[in-house]
């Protein structure tokens, strides 16, 4: 886990955020991430993010569920214990359909949700640095990573010129770690306070 420094800017409106994100990328600053209180459409395009492949994962899990159900039931009824139920065939495909459908849905839903958690690296007990206490309320927050080449003052001024409400420099761990949100972070004392809490 790397300790890094960031220039963090808060915006009051998504209509100001989107052009700012585009301009930051055009300037070549290293955009770490953007935190918003709701999905801002167009943000992924502005940041140059690809569409997620979660749908494909969902399809694969679903197909796995279909295969598990069909093969499982067929093996049980045909091979493991062929039981005569009212003289019906041992391979009654129509009456396998409901369970096949349910397992398809179950596998797809559970698998996709777990993949979703894995990709986002979220789980109970996972802690990440929160840049702005109101990034989940009404502020739109952009964090730019400070590299050895970064001119911090220039970046700050650039952000303020592009609609940022407040800009500050924060030190934080980059990724996630096991921890509780009730515990203070190591760098909480160094990092400045936002004027809006």
């Amino acid at each position: 886990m790397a300790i890094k420094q960031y220039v963090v800017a808060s915006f009051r409106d998504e209509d100001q955020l989107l052009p700012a994100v585009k301009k930051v990328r055009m300037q070549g600053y290293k955009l770490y991430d953007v935190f918003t209180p709701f999905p801002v459409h167009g943000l992924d395009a502005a940041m140059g993010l690809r569409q997620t492949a979660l749908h494909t994962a969902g399809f694969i899990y679903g197909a796995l569920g279909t295969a598990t159900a069909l093969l499982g039931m067929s093996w049980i009824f045909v091979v493991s214990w062929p039981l005569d139920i009212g003289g019906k065939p041992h391979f009654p495909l129509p009456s396998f359909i409901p369970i096949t459908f349910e397992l398809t849905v179950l596998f797809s839903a559970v698998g996709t949700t777990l993949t979703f958690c894995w990709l986002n690296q979220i789980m109970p007990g996972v802690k990440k640095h929160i840049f702005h206490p109101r990034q989940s309320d009404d502020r739109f927050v952009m964090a730019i990573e400070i590299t050895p080449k970064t001119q911090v003052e220039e970046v700050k001024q650039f952000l303020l010129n592009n609609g940022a409400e407040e800009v500050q420099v924060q030190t934080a761990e980059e990724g996630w770690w096991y921890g509780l949100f009730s515990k203070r972070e190591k760098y909480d004392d160094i990092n400045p306070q936002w004027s809006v809490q």
Partner: protein
Amino acid sequence: MLHYESTVREPLVNGNKDYHQVTEDIISPIEKKPGKLWWIALGFAVTMLLFGVWSVFWETYWGIGVWGENRTVGWAWDITNFVWWVGIGHAGTLISAILLLFRQGWRTGVNRAAEAMTIFAVLCAGQFPVWHMGRVWLAFFILPYPNSRGPLWVNFNSPLLWDVFAVSTYLTVSILFWYSGLIPDVATIRDRAKKKFAKFFYGLCSFGWRGTAKEWQRLEALGLLLAGLSTPLVLSVHSVVSMDFATSVIPGWHETIFPPYFVAGAIFSGFAMVQTLLILTRKILHLEEYVTLGHIEAMNKIIMLTGGIVAMAYITELFIAWYSNVVYEQGAFWWRILGPYWWAYIILITCNVVSPQLFWFKKLRRNIPFTFVMSIVVNIGMWFERFVIIVLSLYHDYMPSAWVYYSPRWPEVGFYIGTFGLFFTCYLLFAKYFPVIAVWEIRSVLKTSGENYKQKMAALEQKDTEEFLQEVQHEHALAAH
């Protein structure tokens, strides 16, 4: 121009709101200590729950014989309650999944509470078949697992087994859908929390969510995917429940219209329950600006529609019984309407067919006390529908010597009361400690559908055409730069 929606459509959020105000309105009741009313309600709910536990204990200790079932009527209150509770759950999924796919913006105000209702209702429903097994410690026999008895497997031809898969899948997927949408709002509570325990608890429950662009992108993809999966799932669940009856050869049960008939009935009763809960919730938590009259009217329209489908099914049943010329089928309906339980059929028709017709009047659709009363009437009607289908098809069977009357005994009634206790205990805890309205979804529709934003649209709509065109061109020119 990015956020434009015609003023012809009613606003989804009333009042003068910005993002922060929305958060305050919905999250701040969670941060306060629970009031007296809440404790009293919780006390009632837990008492009911404990009475249910006692009833179930009594039934398990002495055996199913303490219930009122007999040789002729083998299924009665218990299965009635099962079908009733599962049905109630269906409205939540309809709101969260089907209305999402149909891009119905008004779902955002009601989906969270409705989904929670789904989960708790299915939880209650699941109790009935499990405890009906009698020797409940063998309940795991319904799962196909390799065992030392052969292995002896379950019967995959049986709709009762399909039910096991359908209901358990439904519960799982509903929980995933509900909770994945809840995570960002829990993160909001966490970021606002002042007390240590709140930070700890909501920190754990928020999974470390921060709302990065990629997280949101994946969450929306997940939501859409789960909606796509839940839509056929919810239709399949009540279809499978109906097949518990329809694949039998009991007159009155053996009907091909059962799957759609049951699904429509489920949505009918489910929306009634959503109305009951939300009318109370919006009043107590002061959320009238988020669950508006427009929301209530929209749900009443769905109640009317599904009520109409159900009425059509009743008529079809009667017509087919006559038209089929099958004497047993005709007998089943004769005794359903004219037998000793005639009053149950009258209640069913009054509550489900006659009274929803009052919703043709717009004034009544938008009248809250009336809607509240109607929501309870519909739920009573739908309980009687299941009771009529189950008990009234059985009590006068093929042989007059086997005809009986059925009345419930206290452990069955207590069990039913107990599930109300379970339901309301869960709902009260949820409504106190989690946001009953999806805050982030409200934020994302606020600028298109909030009342104060819509008023700006009104000014735009009344503008002179030339002036309007010039402004649009100007904006486009700006955007191009």
